[in-house]
């Protein structure tokens, strides 16, 4: 099995508080892996420690076999990891199209001709999310929450990443929009995107995932294919009730 992302015994925290105490997980190429658990279990911290937004204190992060732990977030992004962070974090003052172009920052010329080079990838994103095409000249801050989430995902896709981290894409969205977000995730899966997904809606996440990890107080307490987790009484009671 070829692991695009492999996390080994990761420790990380803020100030004097240790949030992650030995997290290990693996994401195989082309698979969707879900990371579920209660609020405060350390899911977002795990994502941040993988992408370099937070420097891990111990442990290793292997991206396509290459250790990247301790590198700057911008370096790790350049090596092929796209992190669509919690809260979407689109560049509000910039246009939708500029947000997408910046997603491909690492592989485009910095001064001239970047629009032409990105045209085909932009078109693909616009096919996937027609609403982004409609609003491409609008500033990203004027989009609705659901549209901003589409933009955050599209921006991450523009990088042509080896692995995408998608943190709480359904957060704060209306139920109808949440359905759309999960439809999008199924599309990503069908397109062969390697995805690590953090979700509060554990059931929906397990429906789309090939494999899942359950986190509790900074460590992984259960893992397996979704069917196995559904049979695990403890997991069922705590997260899938």
């Amino acid at each position, binding site marked *: 099995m070829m692991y695009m992302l492999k996390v080994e015994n990761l420790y990380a925290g803020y100030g004097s508080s240790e949030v992650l105490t030995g997290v290990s997980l693996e994401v195989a190429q082309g698979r969707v892996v879900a990371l579920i658990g209660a609020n405060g279990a350390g899911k977002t911290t795990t994502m941040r420690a993988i992408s*370099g937004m937070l420097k891990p204190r111990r442990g290793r992060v292997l991206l396509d076999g290459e250790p990247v732990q301790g590198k700057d*977030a911008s370096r790790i992004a350049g090596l092929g990891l796209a992190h669509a*962070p919690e809260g979407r*974090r689109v560049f509000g003052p910039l246009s939708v199209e500029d947000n997408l172009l*910046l997603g491909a920052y690492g592989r485009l010329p*910095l001064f001239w001709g970047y629009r032409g080079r990105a045209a085909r990838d932009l078109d693909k994103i616009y096919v996937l999310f027609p609403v982004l095409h409609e609003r491409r000249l609008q500033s990203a801050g004027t989009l609705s929450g659901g549209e901003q989430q589409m933009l955050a995902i599209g921006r991450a896709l523009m990088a042509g990443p080896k692995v995408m981290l998608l943190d709480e894409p359904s957060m704060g969205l209306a139920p109808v929009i949440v359905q759309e977000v999960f439809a999008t995730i199924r599309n990503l899966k069908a397109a062969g995107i390697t995805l690590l997904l953090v979700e509060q809606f554990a059931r929906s996440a397990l429906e789309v995932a090939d494999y899942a990890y359950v986190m509790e107080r900074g460590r992984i307490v259960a893992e397996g294919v979704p069917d196995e987790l559904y049979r695990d009484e403890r997991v069922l009671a705590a997260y899938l009730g």
Partner: protein
Amino acid sequence: MITAQIVVSGALMGLVYALVAYGFQLTYATSKSINFGQGELVMLSAFFSLTLLDWGVPYWLMVPGGLLFGVLLGLFVERAAVRLALEQKSEGWILLTIIVGLLGFSAAENIWGRDDRPFPTPISSDALHIFGVSITPVEISVAIGVFALMGLIELFKRKTLLGKAFEAVSADREAAELMGISATRTVMLSYGLSGLVAAMAGILVSPITTVGPTMASALILKAFSVAVVAGLDSGFGVVIVGIFLGSLESLTSFYIGSGWREAPGLILLILALAARPNGVFGKAGIRKV
């Protein structure tokens, strides 16, 4: 007619304030820090440019040389005074940039002496009369230089991918890093640009004001007032406020007395601070959330 004349020459000085204030905005956008030694950058670049002229470098070659020197000074300030403080998330850059400025001041006194020196320019100082207002080509060159440089930098920010990355770091530094944009390098870029802007201000204003170690101390206070009043967000607000303040100053100087010249800037600054109880940088801070 005399009033129009006074407003025009005041407005031209105001454009120089605006240019220096624009330099504050550039670094504030990317790093929420500003170089309190910016005035010394103006002065050092002016002295360096004058030295190039003394060496016999032609004026039009001196200009890029002086501007490059300003860029290097800006990068030096970032490396020596700002980066360390930002990495530790401290406000130490305030003191450190003041210290670097003081060192620059001492260096200038030791290298070039304390006297004010004239700054030769091939641009004519013979007044032209336009609608009854007399204006010299040197003064016109100030206006052209200010607008050209600000226009070019704004064009860079809007039209190039690197410029968009600059805007992305200004909007959300962490998210920009996730796109593979190095925030550290973007902050360097902004300090380089603010050095460029300072050098341009020095080269433009020196033929009018002469060059001396203290040439920028008054300039910097007023540029700061302009930046605070206009807001530290990027934009051409500084131009409006700069022209307003410059005109107000020369009117004050003429009708009330030259001793009161500095008063409008200070009053404007105090009013701006009073209108913003969150402090000088308050508004931008709130908007960010």
